[in-house]
């Protein structure tokens, strides 16, 4: 199978321009169209290890990124995300196009991937067992997710965790990790060799960029894992690491209120969240130093050590 990194940037640009390029992330095929050169450069950098195909027979989603045809194409130009020809949200400043593509892909899954319970959470696997990291913005979830993904844990997903209601397995998407503001600098210092998309400034989230997923996470993205732990991380400046058991009722309530499609799935959503919470050990975790956090997550694997 050809991978995005096997293509020259010129070939990738041509494929994107013509809307002929399909890219696979976990169980999903995306057919992507864009004439914007920075989108091509970003995909080339972030998705180098992902399988790709020109003119795939089937794609789950057809998405496009283009500049709206209005007066603003000269004055403060913008970019618009389309899925199946529809624009689901407002345009953003033109220089945010690569980031908008990532957010648009997230939105597409959250809005319609109802074959899975779709949780707003990061997830990582080790030894077949999965830790799910649900958390509100600002909790340090993505920073912790990036650090774990760069140190022995296999990235399944940074933003969306997909749970199969039949098998209760968590699926991998192995997509780039969205980091913002100080978190970018923390992870740059933590792993200087990591690959990144260019930074974008002045977004609604501040300074943002995406971290390329580790190659081994992409190579193994067809492997699912069994959720074993649910950990709610919280970055607290100066704090010693503290892992405390969390109420299962409260954990259930969080998912019922924050899963993208809990209500849509109805009874199946309830049963899936109940099984997920039942089969996992649930914790709150506060931390300030990534090395401490890594030690605690290693302890989860071998609590008797």
């Amino acid at each position, binding site marked *: 199978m050809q991978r995005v990194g096997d293509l020259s940037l010129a070939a990738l640009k041509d494929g994107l321009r013509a809307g002929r390029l399909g890219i696979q992330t976990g169980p999903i095929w995306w057919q992507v169209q864009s004439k914007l050169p920075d989108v091509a450069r970003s995909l080339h950098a972030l998705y180098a290890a992902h399988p790709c195909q020109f003119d795939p027979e089937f794609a789950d989603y057809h998405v496009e990124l283009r500049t709206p045809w209005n007066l603003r194409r000269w004055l403060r130009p913008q970019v618009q995300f389309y899925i199946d020809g529809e624009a689901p949200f407002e345009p953003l400043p033109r220089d945010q196009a690569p980031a908008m593509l990532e957010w648009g892909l997230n939105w597409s899954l959250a809005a319609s991937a109802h074959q899975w319970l779709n949780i707003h959470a990061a997830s990582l696997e080790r030894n077949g067992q999965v830790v799910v990291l649900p958390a509100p913005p600002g909790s340090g979830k993505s920073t912790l997710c990036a650090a774990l993904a760069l140190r022995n844990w296999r990235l399944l997903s940074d933003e969306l965790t997909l749970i199969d209601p039949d098998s209760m397995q968590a699926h991998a998407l192995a997509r780039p990790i969205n980091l913002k503001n100080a978190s970018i600098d923390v992870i740059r210092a933590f792993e200087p060799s990591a690959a990144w998309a260019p930074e974008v400034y002045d977004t609604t989230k501040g300074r943002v960029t995406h971290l390329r997923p580790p190659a081994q996470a992409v190579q193994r993205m067809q492997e699912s894992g069994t959720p074993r732990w649910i950990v709610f991380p919280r970055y607290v400046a100066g704090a010693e690491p503290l892992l405390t058991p969390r*109420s*299962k*009722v*409260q954990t*259930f*309530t969080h998912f*019922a209120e924050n899963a993208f499609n809990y*209500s849509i799935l*109805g*009874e199946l959503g*309830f*049963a899936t969240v*109940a099984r997920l*919470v*039942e089969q996992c050990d649930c914790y709150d975790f506060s931390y300030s130093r990534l090395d401490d956090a890594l030690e605690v997550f290693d302890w989860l694997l071998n609590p008797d050590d």
Partner: protein
Amino acid sequence: MRPALAPERFLIQRWPDGIVVFDRLLGDTHTMNTATAALFERLLAQPQQLPDVAVAQLAAEQGSSPALWADSLAQLGNSGLLPRH
């Protein structure tokens, strides 16, 4: 009209700190602490029993004042989870 309280109407997941309940009829989810859960499950098992009688029984069994169950009774009432009489 308020729908009847019948066991087949609900999915229940029990944990040591409470229960979560899915109402198949209305599509609602409810979370309950252990006290409210005890009252709800008592009423579900004996839907002909008046809620105040169920509270009195539970209070007697657990050696607590019926007044302590007021919040549970209110929660079930607000959620439409008290039996019709």
